[in-house]
């Protein structure tokens, strides 16, 4: 089974640099990256995941609106039949400098499997994804 993953930047966010680097790093690490780019809606992520039979959706948000933009994504995935898909989120997820643990909790409560603080390296996400997908 191929390890397809959907990568994108959610909402009205147009930060493209990190997206390029994540694409590069996850591809190098052996994943098949379906990169839907910046300014992507929840529907864009879900459609791409269905079309490519992806095992994980990696959501970036750099502009602070992540909390609004990510709400309901888990529920919509389930409605669309993506029952066990992994949801990761990372970037600058909220406006301002907030206590990281409470941010992480809010996103986990929303149904995200992994949540990453600002400044996390791609390698961290790659390691986790391999672990979660049981890839040695």
């Amino acid at each position: 089974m191929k390890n397809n993953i959907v990568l994108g930047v959610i909402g009205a966010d147009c930060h493209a640099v990190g997206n390029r680097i994540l694409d590069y790093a996850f591809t190098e690490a052996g994943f098949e990256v379906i990169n839907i780019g910046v300014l992507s809606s929840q529907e864009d992520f879900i459609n791409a995941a269905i079309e490519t039979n992806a095992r994980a959706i990696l959501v970036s948000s750099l502009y602070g609106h992540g909390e609004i933009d990510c709400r309901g994504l888990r529920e919509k995935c389930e409605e669309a039949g993506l029952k066990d898909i992994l949801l990761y989120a990372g970037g600058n997820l909220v406006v301002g400098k907030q206590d990281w643990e409470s941010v992480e909790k809010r996103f986990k409560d929303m149904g995200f499997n992994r949540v990453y603080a600002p400044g996390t390296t791609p390698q961290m996400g790659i390691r986790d994804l391999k672990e979660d997908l049981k890839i040695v």
Partner: protein
Amino acid sequence: MELKNKKWTEAEFNKVREEVLTHWPTGKDVDLQEAAQFLKGIPEHKNFAAKLRKAKQEGITLAQPRAGVALVDEHIKLLQHLQNEGEADFLPCTIDSYTRQNRYNECQVGIEESIKTNRSMLNGFPAVNHGVHNCRKVLAAVETPLQARHGTPDSRLLAEIIHAGGWTSNEGGGISYNIPYAKSVSVERSLLDWQYCDRLAGLYEEMGIEINREPFGPLTGTLVPPSMSNAVAIIEGLLAAEQGVKSLTLGYGQCGNLVQDVAAIRSLIELSEEYFKTYGYKVDLTTVFHQWMGGFPADESKAFGVISWGAATAALAGATKVIVKTPHEAVGIPTMEANAQGIKATKQTLNLLKGQRLQMSKELELEIKLIKAETKCILDKVLELGKGDFAIGTVKAFEAGVIDVPFAPSKYNVGKMLPARDNNGAVRYLEFGNIPMTKEIKDFNKQLLEERAKSEGRQVSFQMVVDDIYAVGKGTLVGKPEK
């Protein structure tokens, strides 16, 4: 309407305007005559163009933060803090990202949630939703000029509202607020929409009101070679001037090598003035230098080092204005206290350096010459593609990859060009893609990057670019291979 670099007629403008003002209910409150009267009553120290001109005459560099929150009263509190505690010379109203995509309904959600949760759920001030009256309320609460800073491909309604609201400057341009900020807005579309914004500023000028316009220099803010950002700045400057803009601030984002940064500002001034002269535009030209736009160190003391070095470079370059980062940069939108801290470190540095310039050296002269030559290669081709029309030429130049912005989200950007730093940290072209340059220039760029690769014991590659992107956040300018 067909795109060409030609001043819009009154009929053309009014026809579009009628429609623009219907995009959101607040549009109906904009009355150009009433706004002109209001703007005439604004004291000179609150006019952006006037304050910039004074700074240019005195040879000093003024400081401006970025800042904006969802609610009017909170926004005023924020700006007053930056003015009183931070001693900001200019105040911004950073516009939220939904407004930038003209998604005013979502702004409304953000405003309501912000009221409910008692914290800003938007990353900026939704000026269109708040309308003319509230923009004026913000202006009345501060003692510096105000500017909208955003990243909006279609800023027409926003421009109408902020200028009528007394904000005497608008940042952006048809290239610089499209290519780095949108995925699927055509260059033709955004150039037209920004001609509207420029024409609006021009109309105010014709009524005797100075409105400053500032194309967004740094583009994607990530390893953009100075000649590429300067080419875009000059095109946007020329297009604005054609629509009647008189006060123009051209910008550049710090790359980090002092000689290159100073050369970028100097060549930007010299070359744009040359073009304005050639095309017969009378423009009051000033410059803005953006402190480091890339990744920041998370440590606040280290961030102060990055901020202060940006301030020092701005002063040594002789920029009229510097856009200030904050010690919270690495973690997202700063608190107002952190924002004021960034301004204070900047202003202290600017004051210490008052009157000091980087003196002319062999190296500076060479770098100015190089940037000018590279910029000319691009601009000559744009003009050729447009058969003498910079607007048409720009559309074609993007199609052809003659203008090519690194790491841009837009699908209208070819994205074949790849930049990297040389051994001294100056940003060079690693891949030219379709950017037309002379063999001499290409060889020179290549040689510099091969020198670096050699000294690092590796090949010139994309990994070098990735290392450069992370480098400042990790404490250095040039990204070295992991040991």
